[in-house]
């Protein structure tokens, strides 16, 4: 911290203009932008007493871009700011050891001299730059060659678009306009291009209006089960090497090519069906592909052209800037470096020494560059090989701009004084180019020049986002299709096992791998934390002689296999997953990072980037011809959920198909009525008489929540938001292994698969689960010391100070949402030095990182840090509710609907979570409950615990009719109901009720 004192004081706009508004203890929100390599999310940083503590989506009305959604990584980025392993000052390597350079002036002189001495050409190697002002600075740098390099490359797509006549660009995808969405392995809700934006659009097409039920149809072709694939209505699996064939076959069905042979009958039938559906929805359909193969993307473009996607669902008027790296350019750079023609290389954001498929080659080449300068925020794998490191600001300390889409600008402004002796890399570039301005000045002048005056600039900063008119677009020119088709036809058929590399929602490319929140975030699909692993089909596991149960694995030890591809081999534990292609294994990238970026990553996972292959033009994220060997040893994988099926427990999860829902729209309310009738019958049909005790009156506010399981795609943004807002502790892998994870909010994931044939996956359900705030809470009754009880506003509240930790409440919670502090995870305990236990429950370095004074600056001062031995759980963000009520009180008005929001709700990119006052008939929550009466249910309603969280059933858009006894009964009763008064099902938003007679008797 002392280092920060030397930094010249620079003021952020709202702070400078309105100091009189600064009240200690009152949060300020600053619009800024999360930029991580090419990912852009406009956000608001919540700043308490000078420190940013929480990231919220920028819900500004004119923000058409992400519309207030966030991602798990954006939510977690605030923790990176306080990372104790950041590079803290400029460094110079002297005899293989880095030494601090005392001042920036000295550093500038050192680098300037070295650059002169080095001679040769100067190269700036960056990850994708989305900042227009930065691009201008780069362009102005004399004789600078700028190479952009993406860890996970999209150059196949960019080149294909060029070949199709669109130029080297990527278009905007408008998922909300698509009725049929076909993804060829693109994980667009999780990691592909701009998932936050896509999730928002996608969810709009998936919302169900029960008066006229319809939703978009999502087909997914892939090798492994991705997060997006698990949201698909219909999924087809194939070898990764078959993607091209599938694309061509699809084009052929649409009449644009000759069909290749597809051996798998199910897959072939699927392609036919998809093609028919695409045809039927011409103009409202789109096909996206996650492939980095230029030819495949050309075919995809041809398909999109045939189905009329251009101009309807795919928008060329606003090409996007998320990814700009071209693999061949980087390959050329490496060749030049090897040749010794590069005198100086400056590296910002890119980390090829870690994430290049041939990192060793890059490292060797790098050594031949005379002057190597890194702007890395951390001592990453590439920075370690440089001679000079001048760390960049964290984005929350920076000025900046981002242009994710043409004409849409999102601004960055500092929310805190730089914590360390760091400097924006743009300032360095300016200095080294001979400009005395720093980036802040440059940036201001740049935008004041563009926007006209300082007022416009200030408004833009305050709003965070400006939107200029869209450009003219581009039109399709299909010349390259035939060549691409024949190139694909010539592709080798994949042999042996194929390995596909994928990104996890939490870790992505690995840039934020040092973030303990993200490491501990359970993967959407596997529910595993702190590790990567090979995902395997049941069939493949059997082939390897591994006996595993896909249903319930209660031992964390997983078999380790050796994957050999050519000369490359890795050892990695496996997880068997339903819905995998039998010949495909999938491994996440972003793991196996160097410990120098933080103790957190020590021993976490394996780096599998080297398994990627270069096809001559682009890097393919898969490899064929792998051989697997069972090593007959085990490694533990820390999962937060180990049972995969919901065991047909309808009281827990309601899911259906669109066809069924249309045919029997009232199945769920009728089922609920049945429960209720059974409960009533001995009480003269009077609900209140049916219980031993009467209900408490709950006048005033009654908080309620509704979660649309059809909108939730499992992206986990809410989980991290909850972590950040509520100071939820990180427990580390060893404690997750002991099932001690502390997530207040978790997303339960259930596979719907055939027990006989576990590899056949019908669907996946994501069910966010947090405290249900039951009116008849079983946990409250059993607490001996009254530490948990019910507020007058319907919140099940915890008094941590009062809790003595009997864990009785957790046992008695049917939803298992209560979390116990098994050890001193937070350092808040009254016992000193009690985190160093060796015999049982040794705590991981991540915990010590989280307890560092610097890291603790991320803590929300409104929420108690819980000590060891107390129970904790979701509080509906009661601190935010109180703040909203106080604001209303200060302004002498009643609380408006929407004033009080929970962290999970604001983080959600798909608006799956609605929260508010259920006693107010006009509130969003009441409306959601009434409008979605046919899908609404309470989890475990038969227990009569009266939860305050409603769930809306998941609907898969398939034609399958799920007929059960209940439906038949429903049909019968529907006929009889015409004259009966209960024929109409009135939504009952205040009285969730129904108990099975067996339960009532107990």
């Amino acid at each position: 911290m002392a280092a920060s004192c030397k930094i010249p004081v620079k003021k952020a706009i709202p702070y400078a203009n309105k100091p009189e508004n600064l009240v200690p203890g009152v949060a300020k929100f600053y619009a800024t932008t999360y930029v991580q390599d090419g990912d852009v999310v406009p956000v608001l940083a919540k700043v308490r007493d000078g420190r940013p503590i929480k990231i919220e989506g920028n819900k500004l009305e004119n923000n058409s871009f992400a519309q207030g959604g966030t991602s798990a990584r954006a939510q977690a980025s605030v923790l990176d700011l306080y990372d104790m392993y950041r590079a803290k000052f400029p460094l110079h390597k002297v005899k293989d050891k880095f030494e601090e350079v005392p001042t920036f002036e000295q550093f500038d002189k050192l680098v300037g001299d070295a650059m002169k001495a080095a001679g040769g050409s100067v190269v700036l190697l960056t990850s994708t730059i989305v900042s227009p002002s930065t691009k201008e600075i780069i362009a102005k740098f004399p004789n600078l060659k700028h190479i952009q390099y993406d860890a996970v490359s999209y150059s196949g797509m960019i080149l294909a678009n060029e070949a199709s006549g669109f130029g080297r660009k990527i278009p905007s995808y408008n998922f909300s306009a698509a009725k049929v969405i076909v993804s060829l392995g693109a994980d667009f809700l999780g990691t592909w291009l701009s998932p936050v934006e896509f999730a928002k659009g996608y969810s709009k097409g998936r919302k169900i209006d029960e008066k006229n039920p319809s939703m978009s149809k999502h087909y997914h072709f892939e090798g492994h089960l991705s997060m997006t694939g698990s949201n698909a209505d219909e999924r087809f699996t194939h070898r990764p090497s078959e993607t091209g064939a599938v694309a061509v076959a699809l084009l052929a069905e649409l009449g644009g090519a000759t069909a290749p042979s597809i051996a798998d009958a199910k897959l072939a039938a699927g392609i036919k069906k998809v093609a028919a559906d695409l045809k039927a929805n011409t103009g409202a359909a789109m096909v996206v592909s996650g492939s980095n193969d230029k030819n495949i993307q050309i075919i995809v473009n041809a398909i999109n052209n045939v189905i009329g996607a251009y101009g309807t669902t795919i928008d060329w008027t606003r090409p996007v800037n998320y990814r700009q790296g071209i693999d061949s350019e980087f390959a050329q750079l490496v060749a030049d470096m090897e040749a010794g023609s590069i005198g100086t290389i400056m590296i910002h954001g890119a980390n090829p020494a870690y994430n290049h498929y041939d990192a060793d080659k890059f490292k060797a080449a790098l050594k031949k560059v005379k002057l190597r300068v890194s702007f890395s925020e951390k001592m990453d794998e590439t920075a370690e090989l440089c001679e000079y490191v001048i760390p960049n600001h964290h984005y929350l300390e920076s000025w900046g701009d981002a242009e994710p889409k043409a004409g849409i600008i999102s601004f960055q402004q500092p929310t805190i004084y730089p914590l360390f002796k760091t400097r924006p890399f743009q300032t360095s570039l300016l200095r080294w180019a001979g400009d005395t301005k720093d980036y802040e000045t440059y940036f201001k002048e740049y935008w004041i020049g563009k926007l006209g005056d300082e007022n416009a600039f200030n408004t833009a900063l305050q709003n965070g986002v400006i939107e200029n008119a869209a450009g003219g677009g581009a039109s399709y020119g299909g010349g390259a299709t035939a060549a691409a088709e024949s190139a694909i036809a010539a592709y080798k058929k994949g042999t042996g096992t194929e390995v596909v590399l994928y990104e996890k929602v939490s870790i992505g490319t690995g840039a934020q791998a040092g973030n303990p929140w993200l490491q501990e975030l359970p993967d959407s699909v596997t529910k595993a934390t702190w590790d990567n692993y090979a995902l395997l089909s049941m069939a493949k596991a059997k082939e390897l002689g591994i006996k595993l149960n896909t249903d319930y694995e209660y031992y964390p030890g997983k078999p380790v296999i050796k994957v050999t591809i050519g000369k490359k081999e890795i050892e990695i534990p496996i997880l068997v997953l339903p819905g995998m292609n039998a010949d495909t294994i999938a491994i996440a990238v972003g793991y196996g990072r160097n410990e120098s970026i933080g103790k957190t990553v020590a021993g976490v996972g394996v780096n599998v980037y080297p398994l990627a292959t270069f096809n001559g033009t682009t890097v393919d994220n898969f490899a064929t011809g792998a051989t697997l060997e069972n090593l007959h040893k085990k490694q533990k994988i820390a999962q937060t959920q180990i049972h995969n099926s919901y065991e047909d427990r309808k009281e827990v999860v309601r899911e259906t198909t669109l066809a069924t829902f249309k045919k029997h729209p009232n199945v769920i309310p009728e089922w609920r009525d049945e429960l209720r009738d059974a409960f009533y019958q001995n009480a003269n049909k009077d609900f209140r008489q049916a219980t031993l005790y009467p209900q408490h009156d709950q006048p005033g506010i009654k908080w309620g929540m509704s979660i649309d399981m059809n909108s939730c795609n499992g992206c986990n943004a809410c989980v991290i938001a909850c972590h950040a807002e509520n100071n939820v502790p990180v427990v580390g892998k060893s404690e997750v292994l002991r099932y001690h994870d502390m997530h207040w909010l978790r997303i339960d994931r259930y596979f719907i698969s055939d027990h006989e044939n576990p590899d056949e996956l019908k669907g996946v359900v994501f069910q966010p689960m947090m405290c249900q705030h039951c009116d008849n809470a079983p946990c409250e009754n059993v607490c001996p010391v009254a530490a948990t009880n019910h507020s007058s506003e319907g919140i099940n509240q915890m008094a941590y100070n009062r809790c003595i930790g009997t864990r009785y409440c957790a046992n008695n919670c049917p939803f298992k949402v209560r979390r116990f502090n098994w050890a001193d995870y937070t350092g808040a305990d009254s016992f000193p030095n009690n985190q160093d236990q060796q015999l049982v429950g040794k705590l991981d370095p991540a915990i010590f990182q989280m307890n560092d004074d610097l890291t603790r600056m991320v803590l929300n001062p409104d929420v108690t840090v819980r000590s060891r031995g107390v129970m904790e759980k979701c509080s509906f963000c009661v601190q935010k509710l109180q703040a909203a009520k106080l604001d209303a009180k200060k302004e002498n008005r009643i609380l408006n609907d929407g004033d009080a929001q929970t962290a999970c709700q604001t983080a959600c990119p798909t608006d799956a979570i609605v929260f508010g006052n259920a006693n107010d008939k006009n509130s969003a929550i009441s409306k959601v409950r009434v409008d979605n009466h046919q899908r609404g249910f309470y989890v475990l309603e038969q227990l009569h615990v009266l939860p305050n969280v409603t769930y809306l059933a998941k609907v898969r858009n398939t034609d399958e009719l799920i007929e059960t006894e209940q439906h038949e009964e429903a049909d019968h009763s529907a006929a009889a109901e015409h004259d009966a008064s209960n024929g109409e099902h009135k939504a009952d938003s205040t009285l969730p009720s129904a108990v099975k007679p067996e339960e009532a008797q107990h």
Partner: protein
Amino acid sequence: MAVKKFITGSFYDEEVLFPAVKKVRRAGYKIHDVFTPFPIHGLDSAMGLRDTSLHTAGFIYGITGTATAVGFITWALTVDWQINFGGKPFFALPAWIPITFELTVLFAAVGMVLTFCYLCQLAPFVKDHFNPRSTDDTF
């Protein structure tokens, strides 16, 4: 001032003791006390002692316990601070029965033992018996 005279006797068998007690009583002497190593049923009535009212005391203590429990819990949960536990009404009498019962027993038992000690003048102190064998095998 009349001088009180005590005569003590020692017996080896309660079957001898009984007729002796009876005879002494019949002869008009007041028996101060009989010390026995174990309770001899009927000896108290043979000596003309009245029945103990320890039972009645126990009953009163028990009722006190019941009243204390119900009264206190009612006051604490319905008057002093009303807290909604799991939707139960503030006055949730059925849930208080176990504690009420336990306090009844506790009050009765502790009260009776204390009363017993008081009546018998028993307390943790050293007191020698004038006839050590009366706690062994003589009467």
